[in-house]
C-alpha cells in the first residue's frame, strides 16, 4: 500500500508543481501576508523592527515663539509616536486658536496643542482633544510628557512636585512654605550637579551606557522610560530567554507564526480538494477500479499534502528570517518538528473537508468559514492576550492555537521541541491529526466505495 501511495504522491506533486498559477498563489500569497502582517505588527508592542507606538496626529500652534517653545516643537517633531503638523501663527491669536479648534471639531486631527505666550516661563500647554480616543490620548500623553521633560529638564520635576501638592489639597498660599525649604535644596542640588559636571562625573555616568545607547541619546535625548525607571522605587530586570533576539518583537514573531498557520490551512485544503477534482474528472473512479488497496488513495493525498505543507512552512520561515531577521537557523530542528506536526494536523483537517464536501463549492465555503473562524479564535490574526477570556478559552478548541503557541514557544521563549510545554502542544496536534485522518478515511470509504463508516 505504501508503494502505491508513494506512486500517487509523485503524480499529485507533479500535477501540483505544474499548475504554475496555483503554485505561485500557494507560495506567494503566504509570503505577501506574512510581509504585510509582520510589517504591521512590527509597529506594535515596542522593541525593534523599526517599530514603536503608532503615530498620533497632532496639530500645534506656537504662540510663544521662545527658545523653550521652539525646543518643545522640535522635541515633539522628533517623537516617533507623534505625527506633528505645526501651524504658523497669523498674528491674530484668537483666530489661530479658533482655527485650531475647528480642525479638531471637524475631525481633521484628533488632537491640537497650543503653546501659549509665556510657555517658556511656565505657562501651561493647552490641549484640544477629540474625546473618546482613549488609546490615542494615552500614546499622545507619553509623547507630551517626554517632550516636556526634555525642554524643561529639572524644572519639570519641581513643577510636578508643586502640582502634586496642590492636587493633594495644599493651599496655594502655603506654597511659600514649600518654596522656603525647596528653593535652598534646589540651589544646593544645582550646585552639586554643576560641581559634578565640572569634575567630569556626569560624562562618566553617560559613558556607562552602550555605544548604541549613546547614539540613540544623541538623536533623541534622554530615554524617558529609563529616567522613570531610574527614579521610581522599582528595580527592573530584563529577562531575555536564551536564544531570543532582542530586535524581534512579540508581534512580529506572532504575525509570522499566525499567518503561516492560517495560510497553511488554505493551501492544504486546496491540495486535498484534488480528491474532489479527481472524482469530478473520473480519475478517482479509475483509481478505485485499479487493483490497489483503496486506503492507499487517501494515504497518498495525506502524504502529498504533508510534504507540500512542510515545504511551504519552511519556505515561509526562511523568507521571514530574511525579511524580519527572525532567527530560524539556530532553532531549525525545533521548527522542523513543529512544522512537521503542524502540517500533519492541517492535513487531517484538509482531508476531512475533502471527504465531507460533495462539491468544490461546498469545500470552498466550508473551508473558508472554518479556517477564518479558527484563525481568528486561535490567535492567528492577533495575539490572544488582546482578546476576552472567553475567546482565550475557545481558542484551545482550534488547531491554529496549538501550532501558533508551539511556534511562539520557540521564537519567543526559546524553548526546544523536547521541552514539556512544546511536547504538550505537539501531542495535542498529533492526536487531532490522527483523529481527523481516521474520520476522513471512514467518510471517504463510505462515500466512494460503499463501505460502512465503521
Amino acid at each position, binding site marked *: 500500500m505504501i508503494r502505491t501511495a508513494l*506512486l500517487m504522491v509523485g*503524480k499529485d506533486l507533479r500535477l501540483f508543481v*505544474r499548475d504554475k498559477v496555483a503554485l505561485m498563489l500557494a507560495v506567494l500569497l503566504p509570503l505577501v501576508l506574512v510581509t504585510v502582517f509582520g510589517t504591521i505588527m512590527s509597529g506594535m508592542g515596542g522593541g525593534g523592527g523599526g517599530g514603536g507606538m503608532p503615530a498620533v496626529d497632532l496639530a500645534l500652534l506656537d504662540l510663544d515663539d521662545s527658545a523653550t517653545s521652539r525646543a518643545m516643537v522640535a522635541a515633539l517633531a522628533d517623537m516617533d509616536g507623534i505625527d506633528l503638523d505645526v501651524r504658523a501663527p497669523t498674528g491674530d491669536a484668537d483666530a489661530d486658536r479658533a482655527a485650531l479648534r475647528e480642525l479638531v471639531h471637524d475631525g481633521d486631527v484628533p488632537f491640537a496643542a497650543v503653546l501659549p505666550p509665556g510657555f517658556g516661563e511656565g505657562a501651561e500647554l493647552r490641549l484640544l482633544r477629540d474625546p473618546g480616543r482613549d488609546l490615542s490620548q494615552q500614546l499622545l500623553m507619553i509623547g507630551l510628557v517626554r517632550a516636556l521633560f526634555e525642554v524643561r529638564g529639572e524644572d519639570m520635576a519641581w513643577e510636578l512636585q508643586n502640582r502634586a501638592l496642590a492636587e493633594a489639597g495644599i493651599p496655594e498660599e502655603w506654597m511659600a512654605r514649600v518654596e522656603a525649604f525647596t528653593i535652598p535644596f534646589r540651589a544646593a542640588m544645582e550646585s552639586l550637579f554643576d560641581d559634578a559636571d565640572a569634575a567630569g562625573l556626569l560624562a562618566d555616568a553617560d559613558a556607562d551606557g552602550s555605544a548604541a545607547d549613546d547614539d540613540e541619546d544623541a538623536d533623541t535625548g534622554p530615554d524617558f522610560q529609563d529616567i522613570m525607571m531610574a527614579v521610581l522605587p522599582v528595580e527592573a530586570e530584563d529577562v531575555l530567554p536564551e536564544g531570543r533576539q532582542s530586535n524581534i518583537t512579540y508581534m512580529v514573531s506572532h504575525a509570522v507564526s499566525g499567518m503561516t498557520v492560517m495560510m497553511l490551512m488554505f493551501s492544504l485544503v486546496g491540495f486535498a480538494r484534488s480528491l474532489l477534482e479527481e472524482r469530478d*474528472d*473520473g480519475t478517482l473512479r479509475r483509481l*478505485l*477500479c485499479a*487493483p490497489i488497496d483503496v486506503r492507499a488513495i487517501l494515504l497518498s493525498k495525506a502524504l502529498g499534502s504533508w510534504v507540500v505543507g512542510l515545504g511551504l512552512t519552511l519556505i515561509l520561515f526562511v523568507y521571514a528570517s530574511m525579511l524580519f531577521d527572525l532567527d530560524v537557523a539556530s532553532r531549525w530542528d525545533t521548527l522542523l518538528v513543529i512544522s512537521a506536526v503542524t502540517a500533519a494536523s492541517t492535513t487531517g483537517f484538509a482531508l476531512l473537508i475533502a471527504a465531507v464536501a460533495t462539491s468544490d463549492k461546498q469545500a470552498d465555503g466550508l473551508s473558508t468559514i472554518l479556517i477564518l473562524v479558527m484563525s481568528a479564535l486561535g490567535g492567528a490574526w492577533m495575539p490572544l492576550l488582546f482578546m476576552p477570556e472567553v475567546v482565550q478559552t475557545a481558542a484551545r478548541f482550534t488547531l491554529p492555537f496549538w501550532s501558533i503557541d508551539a511556534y511562539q514557544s520557540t521564537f519567543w521563549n526559546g524553548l526546544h521541541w523536547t521541552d514539556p510545554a512544546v511536547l504538550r502542544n505537539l501531542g495535542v496536534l498529533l492526536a487531532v491529526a490522527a483523529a481527523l485522518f481516521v474520520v476522513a478515511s471512514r467518510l471517504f470509504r463510505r462515500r466512494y466505495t460503499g463501505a460502512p463508516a465503521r
Partner: protein
Amino acid sequence: MTALLAVDGLTFRYGARVAVDAVSFEVRRGEALGLLGPNGAGKTTAISCLCGLLAPAAGALSFDGASFTPHATPAHRARLGVVPQELALYDGLTARENLLFFARLHGVADAQDAVARGLALAGLESRADDRVKTFSGGMKRRLNLAVAALGDPPLTLLDEPMVGVDPQSRNHIFESIERLRADGRGMLYTSHSMDEVERLCDRVAIMDRGTLVATGTAAELAEQAGLPGADLERTFLELTGRSLRDEGGSA
C-alpha cells in the same frame, strides 16, 4: 466460446430501491457483449458492481470459472480494464506520464513497454510528451482506451467510450477495440449508440428498470421482439417501450 465472466443473479439496492434485480449474463472469451438500456435501466450500477466500485447485495460472479469478488479482492480488479464514461486522465500530465502512472498502479511488469504499446494503440506516439490538456476530445478518448488496455486485461468494460469524438478518432477506436478482441479479450460495451453496438458487438443484453429484458444477437433480439429483420434501434424500442425515462439517478 467459454464464459470469461459469468454474472448470476446480480442484485444491488440503493437503500430500499432495487437498481439491479437478479441480472444474469455472461461474456465469453473474445466476445463483445453490448449492454443496452434506457437511462436508469441499471447498466452503470451493474458495471460498478463488476469493476469493484460497489458490493452486490446478492448474486454471484465468476471469472474463468472461479469466484470473482472485485469489491473485496483488489487483485481481482487486475483482470479488468475499465474505460469510464468520463475522460479519466490527468490533464496536467503528458500522455506518456498518464500511461506510465496507470501502468505502475496496475503493477504491469514492463511498464515502459506497456506505455509504448499504449501510445501505439492510441495513435499518439508523436504527441507522447504533450500534456493531455492540449489534446482534442478524440485524442483523449483514444488515450482513455489505451489506459484501460494497459497490462492486457482479459476483460474490458467500456462505458460509452466514444462520446463526442470525431469520425476519424471513432474509427480508430473501433479498430483498436477490434484489435483487442482479435487478441482474445472479452468486451462489455455500453452505449446509447445502436450503430456502435451493431458494428462492434457479437451479442446484446438489454436492461430496463433494473432487470434483464433480453439477450442474444441482434437478429435473435429482433425475432424476440416480433420484428424479424428489424434494426437494433427498432428492436430496442419495441422491447423497452417508447415512454420517456427522465428519472435520472445513478443507475
